[in-house]
């Protein structure tokens, strides 16, 4: 490449592609060629300012300048305005790093995403990649596990279990074969951080899993990826091949003598496969019925062998911790929630996207300050946090901090950090009905409270919505929810009552609407 070539960045993240990034990239190439401008087009990940996608950046002496949202038809005018040297144009947003959305964040895990070419290993190393793995290779397994423990990292998949303790169990379990399994099922509505990470910085996940393998003595790993993510699938496959060719994966991880091989496996459209034991059954090739615990997967996991199962973001936090030390990580956060949380803001919101911040920022700051309120411009009525099993909060409850315990104290949950905003047109009785319908469709079917309870729940909600014997049916609803909470084998049936009860308790007027029910327009 010509050394004076101008670097232009157009994201290859699926969300950016979904609103036309590919057409923009092609237009940039065409226009540059027509004008005889030497450019190097980099297909980066997304910065996470999804309302500005496609976000095009140009490298200048001042730093990277952002333009967005850019359509293919804007490209000629942009060149005309001299955007290739940071020129003024209505779409010019300024220096990317200086934008309010970026400046407010504390990006540890997402530091490289949107900055680098996801599939360039040299770019990865130049931006600090592999430093964590190299540090780990100079340590004993115990010391790595202790570091992860001391960092306070808790599983980012939803349950918030301390990652170091899980690793210690696997480390201490004697076995000739151990496995590392990455839970990349990301089935929760409102979540996309795993996807962005796998598309925007796949080597980070690979590095995190390799560190886990070295720590516990595992030689084989699987990334269980949901089939709804075809772009991430392609990126991961390419990244794994490159990592193999570079000796990061294979018989001897970076020449250390530790063997570690990695495969991506696709799910097949079942939400329950995000539950770790169901996921293991699926990896083994079976119907994905949830297993009773104990035994813990850490002791008897994949094919009955000790297995580390962690979320994409949990593994991806580890390289930073090994590179910078446990204390540096633990210095972020509040209470028992240490480090940073990638928050995902979606639904009816003006500025939706990915925000990485230390635990503790309030929901209101995220939704109002960063998100700018609803996209429709109508008042916020309800916010669901933590996926389809998470509670619905009212506009009056948004001062709660993003922290596992703070949300739990409000009978809500943080889950995978997804926030979904609804305006005042939402009908919360319908949302409660949906929670049951979703559970009925996605239940693994192993235990009765969930399998049958969810179906009964839909029926009860139908009667309530239709206005049939409401007080009696609301009593049945409460009873059913108590039963599902207490008697379900896993959190699918056990937590479906959370969205239902929060809708009933906080938005009871929707369960008592005058008839005929106001049909949604």
């Amino acid at each position, binding site marked *: 490449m010509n050394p004076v070539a101008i670097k232009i960045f157009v994201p*290859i993240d699926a969300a950016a*592609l979904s609103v036309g990034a590919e057409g923009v990239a092609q237009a940039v190439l065409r226009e540059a060629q027509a004008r005889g401008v030497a450019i190097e087009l980099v297909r980066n990940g997304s910065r996470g300012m999804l309302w500005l996608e496609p976000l095009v950046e140009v490298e200048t002496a001042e730093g990277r300048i952002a333009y967005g949202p850019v359509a293919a038809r804007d490209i000629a005018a942009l060149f005309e305005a001299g955007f290739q040297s940071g020129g003024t144009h209505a779409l010019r947003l300024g220096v990317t790093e200086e934008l309010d959305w970026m400046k407010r964040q504390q990006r540890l895990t997402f530091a490289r995403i949107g900055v680098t070419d996801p599939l360039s290993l040299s770019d990865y190393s130049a931006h600090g990649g592999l430093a964590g793995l190299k540090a780990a290779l100079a340590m004993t397994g115990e010391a790595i596990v202790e570091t992860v423990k001391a960092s306070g990292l808790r599983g980012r998949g939803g349950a918030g279990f301390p990652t170091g303790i899980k690793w210690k169990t696997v480390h201490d379990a004697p076995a000739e074969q151990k496995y590392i399994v990455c839970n990349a099922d990301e089935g929760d*509505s409102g*979540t*996309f951080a795993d996807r962005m990470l796998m598309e925007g910085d796949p080597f980070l996940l690979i590095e995190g899993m390799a560190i886990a393998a070295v720590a516990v003595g595992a030689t084989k790993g699987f990334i269980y990826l949901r089939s709804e993510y075809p772009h991430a699938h392609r990126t991961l496959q390419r990244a794994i091949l490159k990592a193999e060719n570079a000796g990061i994966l294979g018989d001897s991880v970076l020449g250390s003598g530790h063997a570690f091989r990695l495969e991506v496996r696709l799910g*097949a459209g079942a939400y329950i496969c995000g539950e770790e034991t169901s996921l293991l059954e699926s990896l083994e090739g079976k119907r994905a019925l949830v297993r009773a615990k104990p035994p813990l997967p850490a002791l008897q996991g994949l094919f009955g062998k000790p297995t580390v199962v962690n979320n994409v973001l949990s593994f991806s936090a580890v390289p930073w911790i090994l590179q910078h030390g446990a204390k540096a990580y633990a210095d972020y956060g509040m209470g028992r929630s240490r480090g940073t949380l990638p928050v995902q803001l979606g639904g009816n*919101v003006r500025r939706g996207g990915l925000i990485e911040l230390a635990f503790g920022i309030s929901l209101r700051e995220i939704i109002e300050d960063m998100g700018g309120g609803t996209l429709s411009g109508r008042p916020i009525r309800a916010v669901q946090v933590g996926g389809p099993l998470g509670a619905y909060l009212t506009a009056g409850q948004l001062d709660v901090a993003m922290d596992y315990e703070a949300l739990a104290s409000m009978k809500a949950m943080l889950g995978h950090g997804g926030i979904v*905003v609804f305006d005042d047109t*939402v009908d919360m009785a319908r949302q409660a009905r949906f929670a049951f319908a979703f559970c009925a469709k996605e239940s693994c079917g192993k235990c009765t409270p969930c399998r049958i309870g969810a179906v009964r729940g839909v029926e009860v909600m139908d009667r309530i919505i239709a206005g049939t014997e409401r007080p009696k049916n609301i009593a049945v609803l409460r009873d059913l929810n108590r039963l599902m909470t207490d008697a379900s084998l896993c959190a699918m049936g056990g937590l479906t009552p959370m969205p239902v009860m929060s809708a009933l308790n906080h938005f009871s007027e929707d369960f008592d609407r005058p008839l005929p029910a106001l049909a949604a327009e």
Partner: protein
Amino acid sequence: MAGYPAWDQDSARSIIAGLAHLEGATLPILHALQEEFGHVDPQAVPLIAEALNLSRAEIHGAISFYHDFRTVPPPRRVIKLCRAEACQALGCEALVAHLAHDHGIVVDDHSGAADIAVETVYCLGNCALGPAALVDGELIGRVDAGRLAELCGSQVGSSHAGARA
């Protein structure tokens, strides 16, 4: 989407043989067969069972458990429309109603009569740019009635064919 080869026992057998060595090979095999033929024909069940030394019931059980696998050839085009909460908040249910009302397309109609099928999925990881859909492996954001009509129409494919990497 169109243009899958007809089911062929011999090529199915060779796809299965090529993957049978994997640990937990069932799902990779089912995906590979569906990618090749557009569906997993019931005739595959004994072939997979034999190759993996599992019972036919286990293979059939796996196929029927997962929403992705189909046992009959797909229609010409399948549009996977997200109907999870974030897309609900942006009006995906109005799109479903619109499809039925203006286009006579019933979401999740498995009668097999239609040329175009619209199927429910729960979350495509595009929750900040919903409503979202997945069409022939391409993610589409900010889907509205017009865009959906275009996707269901005959000239589809041309408008975003350039988006294929």
